[in-house]
């Protein structure tokens, strides 16, 4: 006890010293091109590096029933080449000019990027504008990428232990909302899709007025603006993107389900709750709850279940925050023959505590520190800054400055709000309980 008291005093002393210490501010300028492309520029001359990125506000939630997987499919298709980039040349051009590139897709947006030595800025702008202006979308590209996507699905979902967990949870939490489909979609939908449908999807969602171009790094803003104008100016504006959020009625009765995975030997028990979308204050509160429950080996669930009771191998609690809703997921993997149902009881006890008692001042201070550290670490490289700036504009009501406000917002969240959010969203009758079990053919016969 002596030790704990000592640490406690030090922490308070330091928190008083540290209260005015502010994390760095990310400076930026932003404007719209006449065609609606939103441009964000961040200057940093410390290293001669530049990140060129385009975030399209299209993800799997924009897909229609029977044609799932399109947004992710375009992540692949838009590397196939353009009127001026021969098929198969995209990656080669990037690497033979000293750059790195990739893309990724979520339920809400698709993000394409290159990182180059800064003397290759123009090359990066050319590459991104080529695929926005006139990508080649043809049968051979569709056919090739269809095979690649199938391999990717096998590799990252079907053959990966616990790979389908998120998709299984989404199916349970969303009835009307397209979030229930998962990002990669179904292969039968992709097989059935016609070339014209892909072309129509491109026309609908990949227009400059549905995208954010963010450049971060060693740039001269005036020259950069001129280049952007030249390369992206000619891209025609598209029709306004109309999106209507599908509303879900609140869950009032717990649902219990079982899913099977041929790649695992150890089952997982999960409880999932539907929470508000990522632009809400409550979404941030849920992030804090995750940290209390499972952030690090001194977190409540880890300490109790892994270190003390030893009935869990691993525990986790996280907010899978999306634009329209979030999936709040709490779970554990049993250790040494522990019954999954017993783990659920352990987890529920911790949630109950959050609903009943305010977290201590010391725990509150720990949260503040963890979030501040996380924020600083998230903005160390140009690519990370570019993505975070784009996120602010895309998901926080065109507030690019969200990158600088988020930490202040988090700091304002009170202990009472944490308790109240646990009371509001983490009730037993509002959830999906999922037993994720080793599949037949892999356990003993």
């Amino acid at each position, binding site marked *: 006890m002596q*030790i*704990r008291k000592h*640490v406690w005093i*030090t*922490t308070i002393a330091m928190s008083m*010293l540290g209260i005015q*210490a502010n994390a760095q501010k990310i400076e930026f300028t932003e404007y719209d091109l006449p065609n609606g492309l939103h441009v964000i520029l961040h200057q940093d001359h*410390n*290293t*001669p*590096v530049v990140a060129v990125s385009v975030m399209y506000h299209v993800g799997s939630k924009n897909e229609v029933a029977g044609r799932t997987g399109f947004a992710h499919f375009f992540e692949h298709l838009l590397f196939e080449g353009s009127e001026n980039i021969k098929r198969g040349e995209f*990656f*080669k051009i990037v*690497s*033979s000019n*000293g*750059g*790195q590139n990739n893309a990724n897709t979520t339920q809400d947006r698709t993000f394409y990027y290159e*990182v180059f*030595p*800064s*003397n290759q800025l*123009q*090359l990066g*702008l*050319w590459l991104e*504008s080529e695929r926005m202006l006139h990508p080649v979308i043809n049968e051979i590209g569709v056919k090739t990428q269809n095979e690649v996507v199938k391999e990717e699905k096998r590799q990252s979902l079907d*053959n990966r232990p616990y790979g389908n967990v998120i998709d299984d949870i989404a199916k349970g939490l969303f009835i009307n909302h397209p979030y229930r489909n998962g990002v990669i979609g179904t292969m039968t939908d992709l097989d059935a899709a016609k070339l014209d449908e892909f072309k129509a999807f491109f026309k609908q969602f990949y227009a400059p007025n549905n995208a954010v171009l963010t450049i971060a790094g060693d740039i001269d803003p005036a*020259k950069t603006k001129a280049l952007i104008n*030249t390369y992206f100016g000619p891209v025609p504006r598209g029709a306004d993107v109309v999106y209507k959020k599908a509303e879900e009625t609140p869950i009032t009765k717990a649902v219990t389900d*079982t899913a*099977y995975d*041929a790649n695992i030997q*150890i089952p997982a028990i999960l409880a999932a709750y539907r929470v508000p979308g990522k632009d809400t204050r409550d979404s941030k509160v849920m992030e804090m709850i995750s940290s209390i429950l499972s952030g690090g080996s*001194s977190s409540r669930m880890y*300490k109790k279940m892994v270190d003390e009771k030893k009935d869990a*191998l691993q525990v986790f609690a996280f907010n899978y925050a999306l634009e329209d809703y979030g999936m709040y997921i709490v779970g554990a993997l049993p*250790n*040494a023959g*522990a*019954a999954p*149902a017993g783990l659920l009881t352990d987890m529920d006890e911790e949630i109950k505590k959050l609903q009943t008692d305010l977290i201590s001042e010391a725990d509150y*201070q*720990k949260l503040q*520190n*963890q979030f*501040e*550290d*996380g924020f*600083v670490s998230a*903005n*160390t490289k140009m690519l990370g800054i570019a993505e975070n700036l784009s996120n602010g504009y895309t998901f926080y009501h065109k507030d690019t400055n969200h990158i600088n406000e988020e930490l202040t917002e988090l700091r304002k969240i009170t202990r009472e709000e944490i308790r109240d959010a646990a009371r509001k969203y983490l009730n037993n009758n509002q959830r999906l309980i999922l*037993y994720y*079990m*080793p599949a*037949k*053919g892999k*356990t*003993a*016969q």
Partner: protein
Amino acid sequence: MKKYIIIAAGALLMQYAQAQTIDRNQKPKPGPAPVLSIKDPVIYNMPNGITVLVVEDHRLPKVSASLLIDAGPRTEGSKAGVIRLMGGMLNEGTKTLPKAAFDEAVEKLGANVSLNSSGGSASALTRYFKEAFTLMGQALKEPSFTQESFDKLKSQAITGLKSEEKNATAIASRVTNALAYGKTHPNGEFETEQTVQSVTLADVKTAYNQYITPSRSYLTIVGDITPANAKALATEVFGTWKGAALTLPKLTPVANVAKTEIDVIDVPTAVQSEIRVVNLIDLKKSNPDYFPTLLANYILGGGAESHLFMNLREKHGFTYGAYSSVGSGRWQSLFSASASVRTAKTDSAVTEFLNEIKRIRTEKVSAEELSSAKALYNGSFALGLEDPARTATFASTILINGLPADFYKTYLQKFNAVTAQDIQRVAQKYLNYDTRIVVVGNAAQIMEGLKKSGYPVKLYDKYASPVTEGAKAAAMPNVKASDVIKDYIATIGGVAELKKITSMQAVGTMAVQGMTLNVDQKKMAPNKEVMTITMGGNVMMKSTFDGEKGYQMQMSNKKDLVADEVAQKKVFTGTTEQLDYLNNPAFKLEVKGIQKVGSSDAYQIAVTDPTGKTTSEYYDTKSKLLVKKESTTVVNGTNTVSTVELSDYRKVGMVMFPYKQTITQSAVGQEQSFAITITDIKLNSGVTADDFK
């Protein structure tokens, strides 16, 4: 002090296309080469042997520190694993802070602290750095080393080894190193269940005293801190730290094979072949060959545009990817070209590997290839500088390897000066054509093809010990299948005793990654059977057959046996299947050869049942006992190979039963293994027909 570097891969880089002259039909030319500034870290030498390197960088309100103890390659011998365990133990609390209190102290700050067998790291917001760094120092200087933590980490290490026992990739890297360096070399030795099992807490303490020391240590502190403050803090935490003086080991150079040989490791369940083409090289970073060798390796197999990838994947489709890598440094290291290839194309893939090595040794690389490879190194060097710790890494690499102070300042210059002739010269020197080719795969399917290559083919086991080819001889053993079965029946108790068994029950436990499941198997004549697996009282799985029908159930998921499965079970008339093999002429038996099961020889008998389904059974040539069963089933459209290895035969009454069963399932590159340990077997008592419902 700043020095400047110009990125200059070719003269083209100096041209700059103005915005107004842009033609989007043309790929843009690069702008003027950027100037890379490498700021030298501030360096202090502490009297106890620690070199402190400080990179001051106030861009972010964060500081990180890492300590590297340069002990060089360390030999562990029969206690292989002790050093890794020792590193893990440093994260298990200190003399004054038990693990939970230590974790809380770190995480309260939002900080990260972790330790390993050659040092550790700490990072925190500026205002908490001192505390986090002090905790890192405490963990390193005063670990608690409790028996409880040690037992936990040791069992985790053994579980980890077990889960990789049949993993072809893990076997390939272990055997490749062991064969290339030799099993007693620090880079060639490896952990086994036995070596880890033999490690004691006392061994961990000895290793700690030997290797965790300020001697030859490099402490790098990067971030929002002044060199003076960093020095003061380093002195406060590590100034009085003392420890053993380290001297680098002297290693005897190991020779490469003089002529190409193929070393095959048989993993019958492997669904792909792992190929490693390797030779040892001695390439110090100070050697002028360093730069051309890196480029030669890149052009041969460094990326997706390189020769190996273009040939083995793009042209032939043997593999998802083929790559090569090259080591460097103070000691010998490996040049290695590798891929996981389709079993049927193993020998063709080996041929193409050799063709590509020959090509880079005999043909000059094109100007375009060379300039692309240089551009890639130029770019990634620049991109790497985004990380402020990079310049500290440069400085410590210079010190550790005794390099000239301007090594990284002239780094790109040296790359850019490499010619196609240089590439060819170093390829001939370091990328051997007379080489060792390690192949891990299904020997029965790949041996014939590999032997046709004309190179000597040698067999090794999974732990790099030679296997005598005789045991694998293609010649069919001169025995009759029915005699093998008869010998087995006689050995386990004889026909009369076996016929007396009308029912049996076996109970036991099954370990699955740290969990213990209970297993209950029952059989009743003529062919009733049931197996139940429970965990903490809950039924996880049940499969049953009552003589007419049956089902398999997992949790609440129930599936009835289909007609084929029922038919396969109905053919049996008693609890010992082998009696039916001999008495029912509809069973076909065939001797397929002699195979190794564990370290012993066994007759492989193909048993085809009256429904046409074939399984392989392996009967030990000496003990006559059934040691393995193997069958293939199609689950969800993919082939699954199931094997059951049987051992630890013990007598129950007058009949012998295996008390240990290891079940392995493998399909498309994945494999899972379960060991069942039987604790009790009862005969002719307590089992009723109701048990099979």
